[in-house]
């Protein structure tokens, strides 16, 4: 090999060495930056999870629980005669579409059975679907409204309850705004001074606590319907079966 060729080979090697060094440095930078980004993301995930865990505890134990007047001993909203032979307990959320379907299938029949003294309905509004109203907490707002109504105008609670379902918003939307809820209450006969108290949000703590109690008592979904304390497992979304079950329970006594 000539001297010239040797020099050229050495130069070539030098160039290759520099290129390799540059590539190695680039790889190191990429590794460091991506390491930092990945660690930061992991920390963010951990932090978000931690916040969620501690946030969850707060909602489980609301600080201020004021229960509305005129509830049953068991803490439900009563509709109809206290000495009716059959009691039907309904767990529901005003945002829950299935509860809306339940109401449109059975509302009339329940109305009739309440009127003729066959059944006493016990309403148990809960608010677990708050997260499906884009942060406006429609479930809590409506549950607070019905609680305020039962406190101030218990006779109108049932009509208000049914009107809320008649105007039920779609799940995943903001829900009805407070003015619309107030209008519905007034149309259902709730007096204006009671409607004005909706905005005080007095019973929101109570709503949160009864929601938690419903979970703890083993309610796993809404609507959950109990006839004299026994869960009704028939068809909830067709007119007929529930009324028949109530009537046969009444006949059996």
């Amino acid at each position, binding site marked *: 090999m000539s001297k010239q060729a040797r020099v050229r080979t050495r130069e070539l090697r030098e160039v290759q060495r520099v290129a390799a060094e540059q590539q190695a440095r680039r790889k190191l930078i990429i590794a460091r930056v991506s390491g930092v980004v*990945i660690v930061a993301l992991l920390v963010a995930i951990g932090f978000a999870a931690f916040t969620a*865990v501690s946030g969850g505890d707060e909602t489980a134990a609301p600080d201020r629980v004021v229960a509305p007047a005129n509830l049953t001993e068991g803490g439900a909203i009563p509709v109809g005669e206290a000495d009716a032979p059959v009691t039907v307990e309904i767990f529901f959320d005003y945002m829950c579409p*299935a*509860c809306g379907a339940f109401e449109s299938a059975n509302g009339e029949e329940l109305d009739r059975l309440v009127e003729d003294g066959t059944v006493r309905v016990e309403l148990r509004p809960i608010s677990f679907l708050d997260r499906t109203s884009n942060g406006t907490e429609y479930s809590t707002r409506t549950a607070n409204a019905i609680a305020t109504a039962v406190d101030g105008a218990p006779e109108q609670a049932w009509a208000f309850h049914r009107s809320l379902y008649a105007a039920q918003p779609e799940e995943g939307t903001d829900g009805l705004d407070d003015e619309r809820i107030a209008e519905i209450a007034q149309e259902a006969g709730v007096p204006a001074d009671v409607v004005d108290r909706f905005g005080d949000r007095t019973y929101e703590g109570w709503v949160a606590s009864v929601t938690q109690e419903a979970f703890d008592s083993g309610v796993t979904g809404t609507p959950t319907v109990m006839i004299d304390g026994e869960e009704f497992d028939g068809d909830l979304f067709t007119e007929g079966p529930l009324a028949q079950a109530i009537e046969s329970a009444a006949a059996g006594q």
Partner: protein
Amino acid sequence: MTVHSAVADPRREVGPPLRGIRHHRVTVWVTMLVASVASLVASFVLAVEALRLAENPNADFACDINAVLSCGTVASSWQASVFGFPNAFLGLVTEPVVITIAVAALAGVRFPRWFMLAAQVFYTVGLAFAYWLFHQAMFEIGALCPWCLLITLATTLVFFEMTYVNIRDDNLYLPRRVQSALTSVIRSNLDLVLVVVWILLLVLAVVLRYGEALFA
């Protein structure tokens, strides 16, 4: 179809061969195979669920307390059957194709460029659809189902591996400069970093949106 061979292929990129476990062809195709099988299983579960729902509208119709992680709410939404039939049926039809490609490639088959390009195009559409559904479930329906989440994750992985293979093998008919830029991304493992960051962002989004319901 020709047998896998690095020598006989004229479109092979010049430069040192890709080394390391993540570049090994078994790693690449097995990852794609596992992800597409997971997607198929999830699609199957969701399809069965959809049929059950159609048979009996009462089943799963009631609002579950754990609705955040319940398929009932998601399955009864219009987004669950965009084309008039449950979306899961699409997974039942398309995932076996991906599985076949992965198994054939593992067995040494090399597919023509146009074939892989077509696969890439279709899978990109599939990915866009999966993410649109993910977005709808999170922000419109307000519920998340674990099987849908698995499909989102698996679709991401399959897309990642397929894109990786197609860039590595120069299957995408890209301009030379783009091709060589993308090849250097693969060489420096930036693509791997990208997919890890992507998946972590996905996890973060889910925890931020549903953390309270998930952990409380």
